[in-house]
C-alpha cells in the first residue's frame, strides 16, 4: 500500500509559544500557535523531516523530544518515528504526560521522571505552565519545579 502524500494530517505544537517554519513544497510560512493544532499535508511534513527540521525531528532526528507532534500513526510509521507495533511510541513530552508526571504521588518518582523526560527549555516552560494551570498544591514539588526550570512562581519582587 502506497503512502498518500496529499492526505491532510494534524500536527500539534507542544511548546507554550508559537512555532513557525517555511514551507518547502509550496510558497509561504506556516504558523503553529502555542499549544495549538493545524492541518497540513503529509507531503509537507515529509519534506520537513527529510530537510531535518529539528522542530519535527527532535534532538536525534528520530522524533525524540520533538516540538511538533505528528498526530497520525501512519505518517509517523512512514517517517520512521515509530514502528507498526501498537505500543511503540515516539518520545515526546505532551501536556497529558506532564499532567501524569505532576500526578505522581511520591516526590521521588516525580523528581526522577522530571529529570528523565523534561530536558528542553520548551519542555521546562511547558511544565511550569501546566503546573500553574493545574493549580499544583504541593510545596516540595513547587520548590523542585522552580529550581529545575529556573522559573519563579512568584514574579512579584
Amino acid at each position, binding site marked *: 500500500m502506497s503512502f498518500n502524500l496529499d492526505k491532510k494530517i494534524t500536527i500539534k505544537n507542544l511548546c507554550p509559544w508559537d512555532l513557525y*517554519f*517555511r514551507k518547502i513544497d509550496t510558497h*509561504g510560512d506556516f504558523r503553529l500557535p502555542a499549544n495549538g493544532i493545524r492541518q497540513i499535508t503529509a507531503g509537507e511534513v515529509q519534506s520537513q523531516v527529510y530537510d531535518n527540521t529539528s522542530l519535527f525531528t527532535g534532538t536525534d532526528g528520530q522524533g525524540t523530544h520533538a516540538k511538533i507532534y505528528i498526530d497520525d500513526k501512519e505518517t509517523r510509521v512512514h517517517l520512521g518515528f515509530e514502528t507498526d507495533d501498537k505500543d511503540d511510541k515516539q518520545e515526546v513530552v505532551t501536556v497529558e504526560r506532564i499532567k501524569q508526571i505532576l500526578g505522581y504521588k511520591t516526590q521521588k518518582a516525580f523528581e526522577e521522571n522530571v529529570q528523565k523526560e523534561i530536558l528542553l527549555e520548551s519542555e521546562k516552560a511547558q511544565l511550569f505552565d501546566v503546573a500553574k494551570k493545574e493549580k499544583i498544591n504541593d510545596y516540595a514539588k513547587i520548590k523542585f519545579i522552580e529550581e529545575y526550570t529556573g*522559573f519563579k512562581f512568584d514574579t512579584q519582587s
Partner: protein
Amino acid sequence: MFTVELNNVQKDSNHYANAKLNAKSPIVEIFSAAATGQDLSKFGAKANAAMTHVKELASKALMGNPVAKAEINTIVRYAIEPKLISAIKLFDFMGTFRTIGYDQQPMMTTYAHESIRSQFQASRGDVPFATTTWSEYPIGTQTISSGYAVNYREIQSGNLDKVAEGMEQVQTDMMNKAMYYVVNEMFNAIKNATGVKYFAETEGITKSSVDDIITKIRRFGQPSIVGDFSVVSQLNDFAGFQAVAGDASSTKLPQSVMDEIRRTGLLNTYKGSSVVELPNAYNLTELNKAGDNFKTYLPEGLLFFVPQGKKSPLQVFQKGGLTSMNGNDIITGTEITRFDMEIGAGVAKGQEHQIGLIRDTKYELPQI
C-alpha cells in the same frame, strides 16, 4: 594564552600620574597616528619630539623602569579609548547606554503605571489621571579585560607594528566580550521571565514571525531588530513586493532595496525598524557540533527586538574609563599589558516582556 598573575600586576596609575596628559595631548595623537600608519606631516616638528620621547620611554622601560612602562601604557590607553568607546556606542542602538563615574553605582530604572484610568470628564467635572511611578535597583558590573605582550625593544627602535596590532586586538577582544556579556544578560532575562513573553521559535526566520513580533513590540516603542548576520540577513527576502497581489511567486525587489543589499549585505530598515548587525567573530579555538566550522562568540540564531526610546528595558552601563596595568606572564615571562573596562547590563525587572525574541532552530543554542 597569557595570564597576569594578580600578585605581580602593577596598576599604571600607581606609578604614573600626569594630570596634563589626556586623550587630546599631542603625544597621544602623534602616537596614535604613527601606530595606525597615518601621515605625520601635519604635526610638524612636534612629531619628531614626541617619537623621540616614546623611544626614550621604551629604552627606560626595557631597563625595568615602572614609571616609563606606566607612561607608555597610559599613552596607549588614551589612544585606544576613543575607538573602543565609539564601538561600544553600538549599544545605543540596542537599548540605553550610559557612562557613569567610578564612584557611582549603576542603577536600573523600571517603570510602573499607577492604574487610575484616565477618563473623559463630565462637563465642568474633575478628572483623574494615571501616573507613572518608577523605582531603581542596583546591578553589579563585570570587568572585561584584554591585553597583549609588549616588546619594549621594538618600541625603542620606533617600530610600532606590534603595538598597532595589539591595540587592534584589544579593541576587538573587548568588544567581543562586552557583546557576549550583554547578549547573555538579555537572553537569560527573557528566558527566565514568566508571564507575557514575546518569544517564538522558527526554522529559518519567517516573515510572519517577524511581522507578528514587530506588531507586538511596536506598542512599547519602535523596535530595533538586532542579531547576528546569519539571522538579520534573512530579513533581506522580506523587503520585496508582489507584482500580483497575493501571489508569492511574483515577489520582486525594488531597485532601492537591491542597491542597499548589494552595498551592505543587509537591509537598513524593515517596517520602520532599524536592522542592526551584531559583530560576531569566530572563536578559532572551538568547533561547532558538526565539526565543520568554527564556533562563533555570540549565539548565531537569536534575533532580538528591542524597543527604542527613553525607557528602553535594556540598560547598559560603562563604569569609568579604561584602566591599564602591566605585569609578567608567569609561564613565559613576557611583559604583558592589560586593559580593564567595567561594564554592567540588565533588563529592567518586570519589563522583560518588552524585548521580543525569535530563535532560529537551525543554529545551535550554546548552553550559557
